[in-house]
C-alpha cells in the first residue's frame, strides 16, 4: 500500500500540462465501505475492483488522464463514528477528491456532513436512506443507484397493482427499516391496497421471526412484506418457508434484495418473491457483457452496488473531463443536470435540485431453480418503472435546495 502511494505520488510529480489543474496532480477516488463486515459481500472488495476497472477503462480511453486516476478503499466497519474519522482523514491526509460506495445509511449520513464541511464530493451508491436527498441533502452529496423511496414505491405499487391488495408487514426497528416501512405502506395504500394489521417492528438484529410468521398465518394477507436486510432477511425467508406461508398463498414482497441473499438460501426458497432493483447482471446484453468482464477480474458476479460504483466512477471522471478540472465546485456544476445512459443507468438524469440520480428501475420476480440458465440467474423482470416515476417527486422533496428552486 505504502509503495503504491509513493508510486502514485512519483507519477503525479511528473510534469504534464493537464495535471496542473488537478489537485495534488491526480484524481483520487476513495471508497469508504464495509471491507469485512456484514455488507462486504455486496460492496467492499468487489466495489474496489469495479472502481479500479472503471478508472483503467477511462484512462485507456482518455490518454490525457493516463496514470492520473487512483482508486483506494477504506473500511468504515459500519460505524458512523469511524466513518466520520476516516472521511476526515481521507480528505485531509490522503488528498481524496471524492468518496463513494458507503453501503450503510448511518455511515452515509455521517460522510455527507463531513463532505459538506470540507467542500468536497460524495457520491453514495450503497446506502439506502432517502434522507440523503431529502432532509439531509447538501450541495456536495449525490445519491446514485437506489434509495428507500424507490424500493418501497416500486415494489408496493407493482404488487398492489397486480392484485396483492391485503398486506402485513414487518420491519427491523432502526432508521432504515422504519423509513422503508413508512414508504412501502404509503405506496401500497396509494395503489389501492390496505394493511390487514398494523406493521410490526422486530428487534435488530434478530434470528427468530416465528411470532410474526404465525401472526401472518392467522391474518392470511395476500402479501407478506419484509423490510429486513442481509442475514435477518435470510432468516425471515427461511422461516417463511418453514411455516409454509407460500403454500397458504401468502405472497412475499421484499424491501431490499441482493443476489447474495438469494444465494444464501437457494433460489427455490425465494421463488415468486418480488423486489425492486436498479440493475441486475442479466438485465440486458450490455449488462451481461460488463458482468463477464467483472467476473473474469473478480471471480464473482457483481451486486448492483458494485456495478453502480463502476458507473459512478465513470460518470465522475467524465464530469472532470467536461469541467477540465477536479475543483469540486466546477465538477458539481458539470454533474448537475447531466443526462446519460450506460450499462448500469438507463435514461439517467442527475437532478440539479436535490442531487438524486434518477434512472429506470425494475421490479423483479425470483424464478425457480429449474428455469435458471446458469448459476446466479435469479430474476425475471416483470416491470420497468421509468426514471421520472421511480424516485421521490421534486414536489414532495424535503431537500432545502429543491424547495429553494421551486
Amino acid at each position, binding site marked *: 500500500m505504502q509503495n503504491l502511494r509513493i508510486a502514485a505520488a512519483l507519477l503525479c510529480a511528473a510534469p504534464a500540462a493537464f495535471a496542473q489543474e488537478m489537485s495534488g496532480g491526480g484524481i483520487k477516488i476513495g471508497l469508504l465501505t464495509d471491507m469485512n463486515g456484514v455488507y462486504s459481500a455486496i460492496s467492499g472488495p468487489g466495489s474496489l475492483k469495479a472502481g479500479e476497472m472503471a478508472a483503467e477503462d477511462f484512462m485507456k480511453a482518455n490518454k490525457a488522464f493516463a496514470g492520473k486516476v487512483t482508486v483506494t478503499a477504506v473500511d468504515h466497519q459500519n460505524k458512523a463514528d469511524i466513518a466520520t474519522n476516516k472521511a476526515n482523514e481521507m480528505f485531509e491526509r490522503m488528498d481524496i477528491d471524492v468518496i463513494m460506495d458507503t453501503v450503510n445509511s448511518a455511515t452515509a449520513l455521517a460522510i455527507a456532513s463531513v463532505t459538506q464541511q470540507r467542500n468536497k464530493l460524495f457520491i453514495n451508491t450503497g446506502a439506502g436512506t432517502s434522507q440523503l436527498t431529502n432532509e439531509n441533502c447538501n450541495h456536495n452529496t449525490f445519491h446514485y443507484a437506489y434509495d428507500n423511496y424507490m424500493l418501497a414505491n416500486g415494489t408496493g405499487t407493482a404488487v398492489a397493482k397486480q392484485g396483492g391488495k391485503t398486506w402485513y408487514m414487518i420491519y427491523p426497528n432502526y432508521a432504515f427499516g422504519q423509513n422503508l416501512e413508512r414508504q412501502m405502506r404509503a405506496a401500497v395504500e396509494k395503489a389501492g391496497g390496505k394493511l390487514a394489521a398494523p406493521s410490526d417492528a422486530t428487534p435488530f438484529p434478530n434470528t427468530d421471526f416465528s411470532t410474526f410468521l404465525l401472526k401472518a398465518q392467522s391474518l392470511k394477507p395476500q402479501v407478506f412484506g419484509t423490510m429486513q436486510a442481509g442475514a435477518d432477511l435470510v432468516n425471515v425467508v427461511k422461516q417463511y418457508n*418453514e411455516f409454509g406461508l407460500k403454500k397458504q398463498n401468502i405472497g412475499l414482497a421484499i424491501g431490499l434484495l441482493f443476489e447474495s441473499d438469494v444465494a444464501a438460501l437457494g433460489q427455490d426458497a425465494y421463488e415468486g418473491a418480488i423486489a425492486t432493483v436498479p440493475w441486475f447482471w442479466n438485465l440486458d446484453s450490455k449488462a451481461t457483457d460488463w458482468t463477464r468482464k467483472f467476473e473474469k477480474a473478480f471471480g464473482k458476479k457483481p451486486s448492483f452496488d458494485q456495478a453502480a460504483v463502476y458507473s459512478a466512477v465513470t460518470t465522475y471522471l467524465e464530469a472532470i473531463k467536461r469541467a477540465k478540472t477536479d475543483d469540486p465546485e466546477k465538477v458539481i456544476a458539470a454533474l448537475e443536470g447531466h443526462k446519460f445512459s450506460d450499462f448500469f443507468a438507463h435514461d439517467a438524469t442527475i437532478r440539479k435540485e436535490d442531487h438524486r440520480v434518477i434512472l429506470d428501475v425494475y421490479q423483479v420476480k425470483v424464478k425457480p431453480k429449474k428455469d435458471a440458465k446458469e448459476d446466479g440467474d435469479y430474476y425475471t423482470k416483470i416491470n420497468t418503472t421509468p426514471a421520472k416515476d421511480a424516485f421521490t417527486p421534486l414536489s414532495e422533496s424535503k431537500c432545502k435546495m429543491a424547495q429553494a428552486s421551486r
Partner: protein
Amino acid sequence: MSWQLLVIQVFNGLVNGAFYALLSLGLAVIFGMLRIVNFAHGALYMLGAFTAYLLGERFGIGYWPALFIAPIAVAILGVVIERLLLRRLYDIAAAYNLLLTFGLTLLIQDGVRLLYGISGQPYAGPPQLAGATNLGFTFFPTYRLFVIGMSILLCGTTWFLIERTRIGAIVRACTENPTVTRAFGIDVSLWVTAVFGFGAALAGIAGVMAAPIYSVDPLMGADLIVTTFAVVVIGGLGSILGSVVTGFMVGVLVAIGSAIYPPIANTLIFILMALVLLLRPSGLFGLQEAR
C-alpha cells in the same frame, strides 16, 4: 393477547430455549470441570452448522448422519484445543483463558468468513420432518417440535450421566478435589479433556439442529453466545440443572415478551440478568459461593 397466541408463543419460546439450554449446558459442564468460561462456544456452535453444510455440499451426506458426524468433528477440535492450548493456562489467572478462547473465536469466525464469505449458506432440514403438525389449535413446523424434543432428551441424558452414573461420579470427583481423585488412580487430566470435548460436542449438535432454521453464516454463533452468557448468569455458573431450566425459561419469557411488545424482546434477557445480579448474584440455581 388470546390464550391461543400465548400457547403458540410458549412453543416458539421453547424452540429458542432449546438452543439456549444446549449451549449453556455445554458452558456449564465445561465451567464445572475446568473453571473456564469458554468464549469460543459460539464459534463451535457455528462450526457444527458449517460442518453439516459441508458434509451435504461436498459429500452429499444428509441431515441424520450429519447429526452424529458434526458433533464428533467439533468434539475432536475441542480436544485438540484443550490439549494444545487451554492445558497450558490452567495455572495462571482466569483472564488468560478468556483472552485465549475469545481470540480463538475471532480466528475461527474469520477463517470461515475467508473461506465461505459473510453471507449465509443454504441448508435444508430432513425431508421426514418437513411440513407442519396440527397441534389442535395451530399448525406448528414439525422440525421445530423435533428440536424441542431433541434438546430435552440431550439435556436429560447429560444430567443423568453426570448426576446418576459412575462416569458422572468420577467427573464430579475431579471437579470437587482433583488431588484426592488422582490418589485413587484416576487420570484427572484425561477426564478434563473428555469433558471439554463433550461440551464442544453439545455446541456442535446445537449447530446442526439450528442449520435448517437459522441463517448459516460465520457470525451465527456470535449472535447467540451473548444471550447464552446472559442465560448462564441468570441460571448460575456451573449449575447443570440451572442452565437447562433457565435456558428454556428465558426462551419462553422472551417469546411472550416479544408478542406483547416486540421491541423489548432482546432487552428482556438483560433486564432479567440485571435483576438476578442485584437480588441473587450467584444466579437462580447457583451455589451460594463466590468464585
